[in-house]
């Protein structure tokens, strides 16, 4: 007798569609010589001194569990880094938790905060995990669709309109995936004002791309407003800025009352983040600034080449100042995001991701990652210009 597995799976998991990004990866992986501008991870190898710090920890025999929330010296290195870069003080003992990447931080923050039926404001287009994390935690996502004419920044009136009596917290991520949008402290000030009118709302601020900011050397964060500091859970990590994705190491900073509850989930589900990666992060947080700058400068060169390429291809794109993505509009081609990406992949062998993978507000857009070699970017942009030209001539 065959088993009806669908009845065995929890509804909330069973109803969750797999990420739409996956489909394009699968298609691309079956083709030869595809240039991928679809990957959301740095193409750089982790700087050697950081890798070496990890290797040395293995040589020294640090192969055991760390304390649940992380090694004291690793947490201290994080708090020192945040003090240096953000000028915010956190207590490593009570306000810092080392996680398995930023993704764990998002998950356990959602689980620690959400009761069934709580409304959670999600600022889209965004990283695919936010909505999933809230839904898995039995919360009700309330989506704010940011707009291209506002450079995909969150507008105070949009936030005000989305808040109800049931709003528990808000999740936002700037510099943003998939848009590359940045919100400066000036942009965040009116958001702070709205949040001050609603003192019960907590903020989850995903700042994984904080070092990849091409408009300002100083990271911006709602946590930098002293009056909001104790209402913000900062999700951060080393994956994007330090090219350490495979280390799976991130951290959470916030008020001890919330961090302690998140630590409880982390204790039971994860135990502790990888010890080797915790040693590597000390080197990154303490001595990594120059390496980050080198990578940022290179990304910035590529960013400008991508923007020029989009212009040459006749696609409209707001200027992204962060992360490593451009999010052009493809509306003038008459194709949907999915059609555009699929046809582009099939006819020109370049993989990019439809904007709809990141929420309805991504409709009519595509995400192009410039975490790829300059050579590949140039070739891909040439093919893009050919492709849009063929569309205009009615050949596609």
């Amino acid at each position, binding site marked *: 007798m065959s088993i009806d597995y669908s009845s065995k799976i929890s509804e909330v998991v069973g109803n969750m569609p797999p990420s739409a990004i996956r489909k394009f990866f699968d298609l*691309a992986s079956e083709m030869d010589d595809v240039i991928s501008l679809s990957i959301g991870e740095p193409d750089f190898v982790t700087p050697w001194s950081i890798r070496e710090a990890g290797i040395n920890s293995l040589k020294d025999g640090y192969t055991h569990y760390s304390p649940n929330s992380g090694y004291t010296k690793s947490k201290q290195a994080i708090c020192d880094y945040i003090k240096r870069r953000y000028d915010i003080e956190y207590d490593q003992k009570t306000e810092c938790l080392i996680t398995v990447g930023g993704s764990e931080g998002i998950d356990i923050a959602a689980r620690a905060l959400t009761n069934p039926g709580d409304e959670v404001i999600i600022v889209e287009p965004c990283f695919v995990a936010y909505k999933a994390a809230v839904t898995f935690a039995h919360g009700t996502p309330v989506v704010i669709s940011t707009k291209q004419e506002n450079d995909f920044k969150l507008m105070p009136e949009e936030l005000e309109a989305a808040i109800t009596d049931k709003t528990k917290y808000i999740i936002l991520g700037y510099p943003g995936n998939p848009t590359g949008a940045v919100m400066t402290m000036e942009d965040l000030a009116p958001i702070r004002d709205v949040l001050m009118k609603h003192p019960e709302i907590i903020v989850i601020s995903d700042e994984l791309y904080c070092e990849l900011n091409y408009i300002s050397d100083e990271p911006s964060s709602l946590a930098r407003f002293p009056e909001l500091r104790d209402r913000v859970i900062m999700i951060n990590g080393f994956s994007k800025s330090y090219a350490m994705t495979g280390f799976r190491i991130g951290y959470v900073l916030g008020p001890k009352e919330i961090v302690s509850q998140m630590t409880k989930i982390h204790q039971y589900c994860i135990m502790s983040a990888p010890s080797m990666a915790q040693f590597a992060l000390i080197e990154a947080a303490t001595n990594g600034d120059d390496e980050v700058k080198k990578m940022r*400068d290179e990304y910035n060169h590529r960013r400008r*080449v991508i923007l020029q390429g989009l212009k040459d291809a006749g696609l409209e794109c707001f200027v992204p100042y962060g992360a490593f993505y451009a999010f052009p509009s493809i509306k003038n081609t008459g194709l949907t995001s999915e059609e555009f990406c699929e046809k582009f992949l099939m006819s020109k062998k370049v993989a990019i991701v439809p904007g709809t993978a990141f929420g309805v507000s991504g409709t009519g857009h595509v995400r192009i990652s410039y975490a790829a070699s300059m050579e590949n970017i140039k070739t891909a942009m040439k093919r893009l210009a050919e492709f849009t030209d063929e569309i205009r001539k009615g050949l596609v």
Partner: protein
Amino acid sequence: MIDQIELLKLIEKNSQLTLAEIATQIGAAAADVEKEIADLKAQNIILGATTQINWDETTLDRVTAMIEVRITPVREKGFDKLADILCEYENVTACYLMSGGFDLMLIYEGKNLRDIASFVYDKVATQEGVLSTATHFILRKYKDNGILFKTKDSDDRQAIVL
């Protein structure tokens, strides 16, 4: 306003970029880049451009040696006079004044061992003021001018949802 250091770092890494490509990457107008490069050449800041070649993969035989030279400085001219003379040899691809146990370091590209030996004995050792030499042959190049010699890995990042 062009960031001179950003421009120099970019073209130091890749001398084959066109003016338009440089302009796009640093966010400037091509005409401004052209003028800036001309100025930098006039100021002797940009001296020239070469291409990094892995000669081992070609049919051409080539041996590189590093030659340490101890010399007696010449009054008023110091080490410069002899350095200038040695730089005149076309196969001397680099010449540095060094701190430590010797004075000049020459990098010499020769056809073979005999070619280099003859340069050291006939041309360097016989110069007035040269006290001694020590020659080291390069067996294998791993990295030169910031460029790795091993074959480039392809993009091995795997598909992941993010």
